[in-house]
């Protein structure tokens, strides 16, 4: 944590000093971070004391909660825009993915199940059978890969993580 905070402060201090593009945001970051640390220490890390909201609690409830919620909410807009621009059936594989996505999207909402009653069951089958088996295969593959790599590191076969080139 100390390393992360130091690095963040250093990076933004350089930005402010050189007045690089967007240095005002770095100033906001400094203000926000120091302010939160100060009120956090003042309130001993508590959002409320005996039912009364502390300054730290105010920062948490009225700044952090809505800001994090907003960040997550705007994803829906960007996903819709990205889907319109790039979700095209350019190949057979992409077409299969597209059809599966449309079925699952329909089957996961009441309107889809209302218009096409079968979509819920088909969506459930896709998730429970196709999705689960493929995920399991990926999981087993990744785990076996991790075991193999671990053995290579333990027995000194894989040494690239230590740096340097080939002997």
């Amino acid at each position, binding site marked *: 944590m100390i390393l992360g905070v130091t690095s963040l402060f250093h990076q933004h201090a350089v930005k402010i000093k050189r007045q690089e593009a967007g240095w005002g945001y770095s100033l906001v970051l400094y203000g926000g971070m120091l302010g939160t640390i100060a009120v956090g220490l003042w309130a001993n890390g508590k*959002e409320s004391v005996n039912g009364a909201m502390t300054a730290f609690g105010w920062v948490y409830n009225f700044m*952090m909660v809505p800001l994090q919620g907003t960040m997550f909410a705007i994803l829906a807009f960007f996903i*819709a825009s990205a889907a*319109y621009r790039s979700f*095209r059936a350019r190949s057979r594989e992409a077409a299969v993915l597209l059809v599966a996505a449309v079925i699952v999207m329909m089957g996961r909402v009441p*309107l*889809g199940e209302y218009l096409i009653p079968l979509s819920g069951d088909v969506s*459930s089958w896709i998730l429970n059978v196709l999705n689960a088996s493929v995920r*399991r295969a990926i999981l087993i593959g990744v785990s076996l890969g991790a075991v193999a790599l671990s053995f290579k590191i333990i027995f000194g076969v894989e040494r690239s993580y230590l740096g340097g080139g080939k002997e």
Partner: protein
Amino acid sequence: MTFSERMLQIDRRIIFLVIGLCTLLPLLYPVGLPIKITSEVRGVYDYIELLPEHSVFLLSIDFDPASKPELYPQAIAILRHAFRKKLRVITMTLWVSGTGMADQLVTQVAKEMEKEYGKDYVFLGWSPGGQAVIINMGQDLYSAFPSDYGGKPTKDLPVLDSVRNLKDVTYMVSLGAGKPGVEEWYVFGKDKYKFEMGGGCTGVMAPGLYPLLRSGQINGLIGGLRGAAEYESLIGQKGKAVAGMDAQSATHFAIIVLVIMCNAFYFSLRQQRR
């Protein structure tokens, strides 16, 4: 520039407007379409329903405000169910940024259900270590959490009477938005200390947890806002999740229509070029 080309390069602000309206209008004018209950959500509900009174129920609220719209209604519905069944409810979080939110959530539902702190429920708060906290709780709950969120010693709390570690937990649900979450609770908790568990997660995470569900490693899965709406319907207390389902229906359909439109224009353009 042909019509198809123009449509494929449509200003993204129009798409934003469509999504915005599809979210806003159903919230203002709800339709209230029926919600079908899936076996995944029923798994969690049925298990809690069958638990005898005063069984120890652990709810780990492993998310932060970013996932509040999907997981907060899940937590409210599960807590209402557990309190109604008169279970001994232990709540905690593995996400430091979710501590304040979790405290508010537990306090709000307990107040609504007229439950007494320390006797009927406890909020242990957050302890550093992620999955190490789960292992520590498995060995000795009081060394992982010597005091609760309010600073009271946990050993003196009647709700934790005869609870020494995770082996004494009857049922556990992790509502996770990432790591540590459902998977960590299974690997470091259930698998080692042999308690039954269910999971809840955001909609995008749900497909990734199906292998755990299908192999019986978790006995139920509440996925996203839809899962929360199903749980609200099961307990007969409709809340924010059911209210949000119309908006979700509309936005899903808007995206489906947009994808179909873009493919139609794409193929029309491809044919024109041939």
